[in-house]
Each structure stands twice: as C-alpha cells, then as structure tokens.
C-alpha cells in the first residue's frame, strides 16, 4: 500500500496526463463511432455538432437549449427537465471537479497540444499583465450570463424588450471554438461556414470564425488561452465546493517558493501565496495537478478524492520529475 502510494507520488505527471488526455479525447471525439454515449449533460466540451463522433454531449449546448422556452412551459415540464439536466450535470461534474478541464475537455487538450508545439519550437510563452489579469476574470461570467439570458429572451420578452431573433438560439455555440474544431477532427469541416441567411447569423458566424482563429493563435502563445474566458469554467465553479475531487494545501508546509505557481498554466497566484486556505480549487483552476507535481515539499499539496489522498507532493517525486535524482549530464 505504502509502496503504491509512493509510486503514485513519484509518477511522471506530464506523461500520465498526456496519455489520459489522449484517451479522453478519443472517447469524447470518436466515442460515437463505437456506440458510446455518455449523455448530453457532460461538464466538458463534447460538441453536439460533432454529431457522429461524439461520445457524449456538452452541457453548455444543452443548457441553452433547455432555457429556450416560454415562461409558461418553463414553469411546468420544461422547468423540471431543466432542473434534472442541471442535477445530472452537477453529478457528472462532482466526480472530477475541475479535473474535467485538466484531463478531459478536448478544447483544453487541444490548447495543451499547441503549447507543447510551441515549447518544442523553443518559443517563449506570453503572459497576461497583472493589471489585466483581474479584468479578464470577469469575462467568463459575463459570457455565462449572456448565454443564459439570450435563449430566455428569444422566447420571452423581458422587461418589455422585444424578443430576440431565433438566430441567436445557441448564442455561445455560435462563437464556441469547439463547434468548428471538434468536428474537424472527424473530418467534418461543415462548421467552417459563414451564414448569410440573416444579419444575426452573419454576425455570429463571422464572430465564430474570428474566435477560432484567436483560439488557435492565442493558445499557441499563451498557455490555456481560452480557458480564462470559458463560460463552462464559470458554470462549473459555482458548484465546485462540494465536489469529490479536491486540491488541498497544507499551508504550514508551504515555503512559498512559487514552484507550483510557475507550473500552473492558469497563472494562479493563490496556489503559492495562500497559506491559510485548505481548498485551493480556485475559479480558474483546471485541476491539472501540475502544481502538485512541481511542489517540492512533502505533503504540502494533494489531490484528494472523498477524503482519500490520491496524489500528493513529495520531495522524492519532485526530484524524480525534475530528473535531479542522478548525476547525468545531457548533451544535446
């Protein structure tokens, strides 16, 4: 038992995560071909537009759909349906908490691949300036609110405003990079189009195109560029507290060395500087566990699943992962 624990703590997280993400990607993007269907409440971008391949469906898409009801029906069966969907989403989410982002989300994985490519090319990553950093944080909530309100406003007139055009029925999907990129992996490029049928569609599809471009360029130069703005992350965070998988910190053991912060793709300062909180799953955290792997203090950071430590920082593990365990020189 002890030995197993030690093995886990000593694991090469980068490799583990790389393969885990590939498997998850295969399931989500190609699972449909082998009849896999994880339902349509997944807390990750399993895109509905990838109709044949997808091994499940994205809840953000579902959510917009669920909300597009006149108030009357919403007070009735549609409302129940909405609540049940939400409950199922939460149930899924609680299993992995933000780990869905760090290990499963295909958009997240794609960004990591672009990051790996950049790293191979020895190009430095860029960072958001600290002044802008806090402003960026609120964007995902704004997007979330918009994607919640717009569908409602299609079917209802709120505060006497006119109803919105039907072209906006899936407002976030229109601009979601997943809509174009995920189906593309199954050879389906149908989503790369500009819809001239109405003005709204025209604007939204052009915006969508631009965002895909931004996504690709952005996440090449900035790690997890898109995740900072992702409304899925905002939605998830609302329910994060009671989730089963946790990132815990024992502040007493922390030296504030900042090694964890340096490893964090989301530039989360708290992970290093907060020495009083226990739960360190912050709003932007993608629970990638890179911080744990980069922390050299025994038992300072840990991933905890229903009270059981499944992976924790250790000196030994750190040294192994940094390849500082032996005196060998590399000549490249």
């Amino acid at each position: 038992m002890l030995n197993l624990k030690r093995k886990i703590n000593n694991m090469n997280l980068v490799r583990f995560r790389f393969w885990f993400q590939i498997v998850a990607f295969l399931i989500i993007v190609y699972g449909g071909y082998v009849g896999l269907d994880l339902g349509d409440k997944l807390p990750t971008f399993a895109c509905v537009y990838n109709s044949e391949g997808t091994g499940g469906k994205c809840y953000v898409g579902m959510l917009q759909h669920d909300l597009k009801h006149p108030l009357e029906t919403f007070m009735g069966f549609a409302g129940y349906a909405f609540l049940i969907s939400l409950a199922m989403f939460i149930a899924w989410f609680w299993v992995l908490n933000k780990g869905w982002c760090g290990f499963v989300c295909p958009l997240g994985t794609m960004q990591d691949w672009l990051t790996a490519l950049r790293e191979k090319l020895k190009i430095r990553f860029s960072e958001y300036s600290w002044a802008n950093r806090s402003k960026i944080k609120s964007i995902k909530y704004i997007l979330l609110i918009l994607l919640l309100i717009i569908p409602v406003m299609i079917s209802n007139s709120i505060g006497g405003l006119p109803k919105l055009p039907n072209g906006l029925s899936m407002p976030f999907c229109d601009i979601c990079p997943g809509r174009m990129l995920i189906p593309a992996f199954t050879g389906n490029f149908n989503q790369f189009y500009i819809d001239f049928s109405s003005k709204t569609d025209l604007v939204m599809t052009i915006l969508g195109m631009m965002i895909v471009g931004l996504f690709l360029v952005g996440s090449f130069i900035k790690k997890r560029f898109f995740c900072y703005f992702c409304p899925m992350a905002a939605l998830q965070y609302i329910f994060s507290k009671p989730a089963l998988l946790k990132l815990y910190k024992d502040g007493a053991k922390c030296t504030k060395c900042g090694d964890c912060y340096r490893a964090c793709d989301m530039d989360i300062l708290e992970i290093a500087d907060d020495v009083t909180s226990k739960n360190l799953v912050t709003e932007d955290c993608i629970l990638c566990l890179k911080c744990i792997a980069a922390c050299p203090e025994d038992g300072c950071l840990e991933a905890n699943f229903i009270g059981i430590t499944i992976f924790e920082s250790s000196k030994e593990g750190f040294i192994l992962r940094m390849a500082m365990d032996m005196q060998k020189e590399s000549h490249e």
Partner: protein
Amino acid sequence: MNNINHNIESPKEKQNRHKAMEAIKLLNTLREDFKAPISSMEYFYDLFERVHCKHESLHDDKTKIGTMCIQIPSEIIYALDGVPIRLCNGFYTDDEIGSDLMPQKACPLIKATVGHFASGNFTDKPDIVFSPTTCDQKTKAGVTIESFGYKLIDIDFPRTKESEASREYWRRSVKQFAVELSRFQGKKLTRTSLKNAIKKIGYAQSLYHKLSEFRKNELVPILGLDVFLVTNAFFFDKIDNWIEATEKLLSELEIRAKEKITVSGKASPRIVYTGSPPIFPNYKIPLIVEQSDAIIVADETCSSNRMFNDMVAVDEWNIYDMMDSISDKYLKACTCPIFTKNEDRIRRVIQLVRAYKADGVVYQAFAGCTVYEMEQRSVLEAMEKEGIPIIYLESDYSPSQGGQLSTRVEAFIESLKNRRRMKK
C-alpha cells in the same frame, strides 16, 4: 642567547597562521570532542584543513566568481563555466582586519568579509564579485571592496518579495547578471549547459535533503556542527567532490541509522537553530549548544538550510523558463530577514520544529546585524504563541565571551530537559 636569527612573518603569513590556528582549533574539536565520530566526515575536516591551514587552492584552472550572498544563482555560474565562491567569512582574524575599515558596530560577518578582501589573501581569489543588494551592510560593503581594486558588480535585489513588481524586477536583475557574466566569461549561455547546471545543483540539494531526513530520526546519527561543515564546504568546494563525499556520508549514515548509532545523549534536547549564519570557523554558538548536551536537528540559516532547501522547478526546459524559475526560486523562497515582512521565516521555523520534533529554538544574531536583531521580537512572539521555547543570543566572532553565553545556553537546555521530563 642574544637575538635569535629567525625571520618575522609577513602580514600575510601572520594572517594565514592566525586563520590556520582558528581553523585547526575547531576542526580538532569536531574531530575529537564528540562521541561516535563519523569516518566519512574526514573528507570535510580535511578539506577545511587543506584550504585554511595548508592554503591549498582548489580551482586554479577555473574562473572564480565571488558571490556575497545566496541570491546569486550558482546555476548560471556553472552554466557559464565558472566556479561560484561564496565569500561570507567567519574568521575572527579577518574580522579584526575589517574592524579598521568598517564602523565599530558593523556586523562581524561583513567586517570579516571586508577584512578578507582588504588583505587580498585568498587561496582562490575571485576574478569578479557579484554583490546582491541584500542587507544594508553588504550593500555598502561593496564600495569598500571595490576600492581595494576588485571588480565588483551590484545586482539589484528587491526587498519586498510579495509583489509581482518585485518578481519582474528580480527576473530582470538575474537576466542582467547572466548577461554580465556571459560577457565576462566570453561564453554564451546555452540550453544544455543551463539545464545540466540546474540538475547538478538540484542533485546536490537532493543529497542535502536526504541528509536532513536522518536528522528527523529519534536517534540522531550526525551532529548539527558536522552538517554546518558539510553545507559550508559547498561555499567553495569542487562540486563533484562535494557530491561524492556527501554520497559517502549518506551511506555511512544509512548504516548508522540501522545500527542505531547516535551522536546525542539519552536526554539531549533537539534544537532548531536560526539567525545569523554560522560560517566556518565561527561555530561558537552551535558548539556551545552541542557541547551542552543538546543536538541541533535543523536550522534556518543562510549558510545551510536556506541555501539548499528550495529547489528550482522548471516547467519548460528552455532558457526562458529556466531563467525565470531560477529567478523566482532565489527570491520567492528566500526567508532572509532583509525583506519587509517575513511571515515566511516564522512559518519555516515553526514547520522545522514540528517536522524535526524539536524541543526548542536557539536564535542567535551577530551584534551589529540589525535585521536579525530586529526580527528577533516577532519571532520570539510567534514562538511564544506556539508554545515553542526559544532563547535569543547575541554574539560576535571574538574568541572570548564564551563563559557567559554558555551559562545561558546551558540553563536553556536544562529547562528543555525539564520540560521533557514533566511531559513524560
């Protein structure tokens, strides 16, 4: 019988003899006065004897890069094919020389360092010196040292470590340092050389951590004094030799731990040592502590733990990220008292007390070291709150003064023993 024909020593010879006498005195004490000596420590005793008594130089063939504090990244120095030599000095002989050049109340470490430069008497003379702007005295000492004709470059070090601005600032300083050094060496920093240097130092650090692990044992197999010597050797030793010797030491400790050989007594209280750094041969306070039947199990000083504890973590093994990692490590993890706030240092001491099951803390400050003297209050308060016994001592490099200090230390250690008995 009249005036005997012999030559009088030159000032340099005299200084060497004085230092040799200081050195051998401590080394003999370490070799002989304690029970269960460790045979692989002989490498370190011998190393210090070779350098300080026989004046052997170790790095004839290399460029020697003098550093004035731990914040100058050794990784970059090794990557640029230099040898870092940390110039913090513990000799009373040099302290006396420096006293004529510095204010009376200056810190003895600075006086000794300046005195050393003033005498120009080095076994491995630094070809260039980098001085980070840490404490006021070190910062200002740079000018004095420069006036003796040394090439000295100041490296801007921020004194608030919390802010992101200071992170940026320090990263720039480190880059500047790399540029200066690379120009001086006429070499380019490459990805491979930096990576190798990081890994080598990381490996040395991992050995230190293994060494520390043994000190957590109930039966401590190694003296705190010996550990101070091992870490001090890292200031100037050839890193490969140091690594080899420490590996040997570790395997001996392994055996000792199995055979339950200990250097401490049955009731020896376990001590965490913090404050101004004990630097060879000024082991005055640790010596008193360990000669009074206590054992130092951990420390929080820049000549030992602070130098080894925190390791560089790299995410992307390219120069840009390695440089940032190095910079951050030397700033963010540092618990030097020169920073504005220093909660981290207090937390570190408490954590050490817990992890090493210490009975008490010995806090010593050099008379003249304002920053450690000032921080004493907050540390004492914090320890009181935690219920950790602590004693505060002020000392200097002079060989006298021993009696009073040892009486105080003995009383403290006896009180710790009493506490233990009461608990049982």
